[in-house]
């Protein structure tokens, strides 16, 4: 596909100031703001496919990637996004350094705040950590995943991937399958997709479903086949092995047999259905390689590409707000 990237001034004009100082949850946005962010992200997709990918919307700005939990994908995505926008980006992984010295999240926040960053991107293993941090710093905070709570930029990139594949998000039947209970990706996606008018189902064994999930405005299915019946999008979640504190499923092979996505089960989905996964995948546990690697049905690589563009849109929008201040 050949696209002509819009000019810098055009992009600058489209980067509407972010509605809030921080981006902690998809509920910080309304559907119009989401659409405008996704439009902006489309521009960045085009820009990112050019040889020269730089645009100086964040020139002079400092971005700190503060990742208490290891993440190659999200961290490099934010890093690239920041660098392509011309910001100075540094990565910190306090797991290895200060936490073992007894420094708390707040201590770290106060220290970093004194370095006058403009945007802090945080990932932390505890729900609410990004919100807590945002109360203690002067800069903007972007939640790149807090415990089992939210991962809002992931939901935006998923929505962008769906919009580009189907031309719309509203009205799509989206089945989110697997470990919903421990998944921040699922929470952010349910909130965003229902806000955009998609019909969302959550699919998985009861032990991997959050309490009262039926009150989230979704259909709940405990059978994968009925859950993906007629769905246009099948989003598989990572079975978070490191989060399994007890025996929530009997075995990996039983899980794959009942809940893993293979071509046979996928045949139940709507014709032309697309498969998504936030990564990293457990091949042969929640998804068969045969499905994951088939580019005619898998959006998994698109999701990674959209990730950079969406994060550029979020950062540019937050910076536009900072510029207005």
């Amino acid at each position, binding site marked *: 596909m050949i696209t002509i990237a819009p000019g810098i001034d055009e992009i600058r004009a489209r980067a509407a100031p972010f509605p809030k100082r921080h981006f902690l949850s998809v509920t910080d946005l309304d559907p119009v703001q989401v659409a405008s962010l996704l439009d902006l992200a489309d521009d960045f997709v085009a820009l990112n496919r050019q040889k020269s990918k730089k645009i100086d919307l964040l020139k002079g700005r400092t971005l700190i990637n503060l990742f208490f939990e290891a993440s190659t994908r999200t961290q490099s995505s934010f890093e690239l996004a920041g660098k392509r926008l011309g910001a100075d980006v540094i990565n910190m992984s306090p797991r290895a350094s200060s936490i073992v010295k007894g420094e708390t999240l707040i201590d770290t926040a106060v220290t970093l705040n004194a370095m006058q960053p403009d945007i802090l991107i945080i990932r932390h293993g*505890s729900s*609410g950590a990004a*919100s807590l941090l945002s109360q203690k710093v002067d800069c903007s905070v972007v939640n790149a995943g807090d415990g089992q*709570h939210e991962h809002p930029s992931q939901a935006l990139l998923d929505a962008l991937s769906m919009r580009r594949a189907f031309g719309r998000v509203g009205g799509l039947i989206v089945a989110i399958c697997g470990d919903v209970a421990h998944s921040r990706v699922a929470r952010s996606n349910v909130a965003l997709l229902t806000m955009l008018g998609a019909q969302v189902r959550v699919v998985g064994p009861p032990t991997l479903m959050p*309490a*009262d999930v039926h009150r989230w405005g979704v259909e709940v299915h405990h059978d994968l086949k009925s859950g993906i019946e007629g769905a246009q999008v099948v989003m598989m979640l990572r079975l978070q092995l490191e989060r399994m504190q007890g025996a929530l499923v009997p075995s990996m092979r039983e899980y794959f047999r009942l809940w893993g996505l293979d071509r046979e089960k996928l045949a139940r989905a709507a014709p032309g259905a697309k498969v998504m996964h936030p990564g990293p995948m457990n091949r042969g546990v929640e998804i068969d390689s045969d499905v994951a690697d088939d580019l005619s049905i898998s959006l998994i690589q698109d999701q990674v590409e959209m990730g950079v563009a969406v994060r550029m849109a979020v950062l540019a929008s937050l910076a536009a707000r900072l510029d207005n201040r």
Partner: protein
Amino acid sequence: MSPQPLAFVNARLVDPESGYDGPGALIVAEGVIADVSHEAALAGLSPDVRVIEAAGALLCPGLIDLRVKTGEPGSEPKETLKSAARAAAAGGVTSIVVQPDTNPVIDDPAVVDFILRRARDIELVHVYPAGAATKGCQGAGMAEIGLMAEAGCVYVTDADHPIVDSRVMRRLLAYAGALGILVAHRPADPWLSAGASATEGEFAGRLGLSAEPVAAETIMLERDIALVELTGSRMMVDQISAAAPLERLARAKDARLPLLATASINHLSFNEIDIGDYRTFCKLVPPLRAETDRSALIDALASGLVDIVVSAHAPAPAEDKRLPFDEAAPGAIGLETFLSALLTLYHEGRMPLARLIHAATLAPAKAIGLAAGRIAVGAPADLLLADIDAPRLIDAETLISKSKNSAFDGRRLQGVVRMTLVDGRVVYEA
């Protein structure tokens, strides 16, 4: 030297024993209540009596709080016995029972004695220790509960730690029952509640918090009820918090089993939604429940199904609270806001004033065998005088407790303590 005699006139006198709530006057001398009148004024007072014009303010027994944590011994920066006693006095609380899960644990008569000696030196409010039910609050071997009771502990409990082993609990109830010692236990299934910082449901699910179902409390309460039935011993259910366990409690009480139950003022005042944007001051043990549970708890207190209200005062310093919710220490301070928070239930018309006062004075006094909690000639002059309508904005920073983790921070309450008396001595005066 006994303090100057005092006379309170024009008070709204509430006597939890008779249920009287009306005009009254009262004389305090020699550390006890020397005279009580249901008239507003008193005649023939001698000139050396200090007369206090109550102007319609509430005069009732000082509050008796069966569940207070301090940091002494072991974590004095959190709270000392002295700072807790000062907070209590300012809150109209005249007796506090401190929990045994300190460092060292109060599982030895020498530590009981240490607490009592410290309390005597502080000379503010009455401080009574609760002894550990099991050694180190570990839930295995029984602590020396007979020796601790002789030394002055008023009941035994493992505080926040559930006694998981049913055989230990059975023996404890049987043994303590024979010695006339009250056992308190917070019902919580340790597996269902493991790592939980909220109540399972839509709200905790959306916040992504680790949560326990109410069944964790119900299951353990059912076990405890069966063991009370088996042993015939008295047990106090510590901080019952939800509708389902209240139903079980009601059935057990209907069967005349010797059960008492407490509820914390926090669970009567807040629900899970108050956690809001991860407010760690609302992280409590047991976790805050649904609004239907809170409402059922208030009804149970009004009906007498729940006997006693406690403040569940649990100081935690900022460094233990300014953490992500799941990592933060549980608990909230409550001594200085106890009365005002109780009065909310009266102002909202949920129950008569005398019923509320009863649950925080006479009922706990009877549970642990204190002579206080009564308005009667010869009873200890442990009293509070408070303007129950006076508005009050809670600012945690201005509270006396060394830790400022008040769940009521920023709330508007009514009820301001004017004076607190312990054994006829004025220990607080606004």
